[in-house]
């Protein structure tokens, strides 16, 4: 990075640290923070969408759909999340390969599960054999997003369902009196107003999602926990930058990163709540109206 970094062993302290924190592996560490942010940015909308579908299913009057929604929400909420995080990627991966196997190689006669092996034909491998490294990484990441979205989608579905019911009944009845259909009333009356009731629950779920991101490590993704362990471990004089066991400091940095994230989100959700309360028939909305008058 810097021109004076050619031989770090003779450098004074501050230059040594300047070089140390800008070496190639540290940039991979910094990129891993980006991965956490990307994961949050991708998972949150996907989970919101899954949760929306789940909430609609919970509201639905078609009973198979209603039962599906209830089953999904209760199963995910009833089983420890960690089981789900490790179960979904591997089960989904095997499921996809199983389907591909039956499409690609219909005349394969051996069983797929042989003892402790899961064997599918060559063409059924997902991602395809000899793919580039980034394809495998992307696949693992997509699996992680799916697992997160499934678990958090169930939480969101429950919250949104509650929020939809919290919208004052009289408003829906008024809409129906104007001759709107059920779908129209939902789109025009319930959907815009439910958010103020949903925000406290959603902000809770968001905080839980933020605190779940280090579990990426368990899925074998090179995330911040992985790099903190790698970089912090003791380095002998064989390395360019020898140092003692610094893992504690690296994990302290991660701790601060997460505290910062939760603190910022708390602040942001507070602002959002103020904004959404504007013109609402709630105590907070009433207070805003009086303050403006």
């Amino acid at each position: 990075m810097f021109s004076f970094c050619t031989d770090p062993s003779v450098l004074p302290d501050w230059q040594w640290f300047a070089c140390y924190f800008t070496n190639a592996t540290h940039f991979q560490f910094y990129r891993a923070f980006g991965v956490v942010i990307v994961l949050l940015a991708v998972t949150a909308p996907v989970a919101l969408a899954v949760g929306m579908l789940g909430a609609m299913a919970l509201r639905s009057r078609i009973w198979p759909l209603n039962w599906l929604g209830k089953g999904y929400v209760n199963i995910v909420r009833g089983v420890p999340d960690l089981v789900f995080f490790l179960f979904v990627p591997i089960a989904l991966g095997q499921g996809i390969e199983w389907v591909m196997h039956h499409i690609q190689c219909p005349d394969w006669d051996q069983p797929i599960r042989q003892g402790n092996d899961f064997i599918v034909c060559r063409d059924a491998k997902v991602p395809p054999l000899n793919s580039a490294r980034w394809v495998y990484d992307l696949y693992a990441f997509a699996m992680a997003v799916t697992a997160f979205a499934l678990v958090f989608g169930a939480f969101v579905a429950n919250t949104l369902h509650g929020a939809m019911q919290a919208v004052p009944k009289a408003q829906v009845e008024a809409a129906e009196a104007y001759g709107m259909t059920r779908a129209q009333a939902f789109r025009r009356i319930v959907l815009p107003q439910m958010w103020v009731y949903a925000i406290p629950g959603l902000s809770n779920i968001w905080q839980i999602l933020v605190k779940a991101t280090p579990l990426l490590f368990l899925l074998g993704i090179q995330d911040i926990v992985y790099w903190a362990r790698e970089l912090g471990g003791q380095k002998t004089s064989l390395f360019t930058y020898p140092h003692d066991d610094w893992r504690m400091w690296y994990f302290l940095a991660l701790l601060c990163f997460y505290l910062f994230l939760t603190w910022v989100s708390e602040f942001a959700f507070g602002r959002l709540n103020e904004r959404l309360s504007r013109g609402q028939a709630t105590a907070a909305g009433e207070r805003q109206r009086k303050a403006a008058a």
Partner: protein
Amino acid sequence: MRTCLESFEGYILRALGRDFGERLLPRNLDITLCDQMFLIASGLIWNVYFAGVAILFGFFLAIGMAVAKFSQNKWLNIPASVFIFVFRGSPLFIQFFFFYSAFVLLPRSGIDIPLGFVTLTLDTSALTTAQVGGLIVLILNTTAYSAELFHGALRSIPKGDLEAADAYGMNALTKFRRVVFPSMLRLAWPSYTNEAIFLTHSTTLVFLSAFPARQQSGEAFYYARYFVDQTFNPFVAYPIVAAYFILLTLAIIGLYGLVNRRLNRHLPKERRQRIRFRPQYIR
């Protein structure tokens, strides 16, 4: 192949260490369904140990912490708020890593604390084991979460109750023991039940983070993961461990429900608080 009875004898106490059953865990093709059921069940010993001891210590620490946060003295209030913020605002998973790597740095031989004429030697080597070090992290974590619940309950104790206590001329300690504490506990109990459930579920993280499982003695989820790695089949071990945890959850709800009944026994029926199961596991 082992029979089911042999599996039971070999593995039901295996989580306590290699002297309590088969020395080695079952491997590869040798794994039977009974092995999976009993070995995972034996892991529950540690889940119950971690959750039980952490809740026991955390309960008393949390009461102190909640009172400190509620106090108007800023020397009590600010440190308590910071403690609660730090432990609730960061992932438990990272807390485990941080404390483990901090405990490892402590000198193996112990720390000498000179107390005038005697020197107290703190044994530090145990801190790097999950059974002590991991437990400490869990205690701190549950203290923070429960303190927040108790703090919320303290804030919502009816004003009239406190005024009545003053009118009876109770001093601060009596007032706390007879009025504040029972009301706080009663108000916080439904959420505290959920906290106990979350804590039990998060004991699965202990061995997945930094703390080593010595002699392959771990908790239930550690063994479930071991089996999935061995058999590459997630459809057996994970449902087993999920079922065990559902049973554990039901046991907690039952136990806490009994306490809840006792806490609410003086109230007319319609004012009693019901426990609602609201699982949101990750911390």
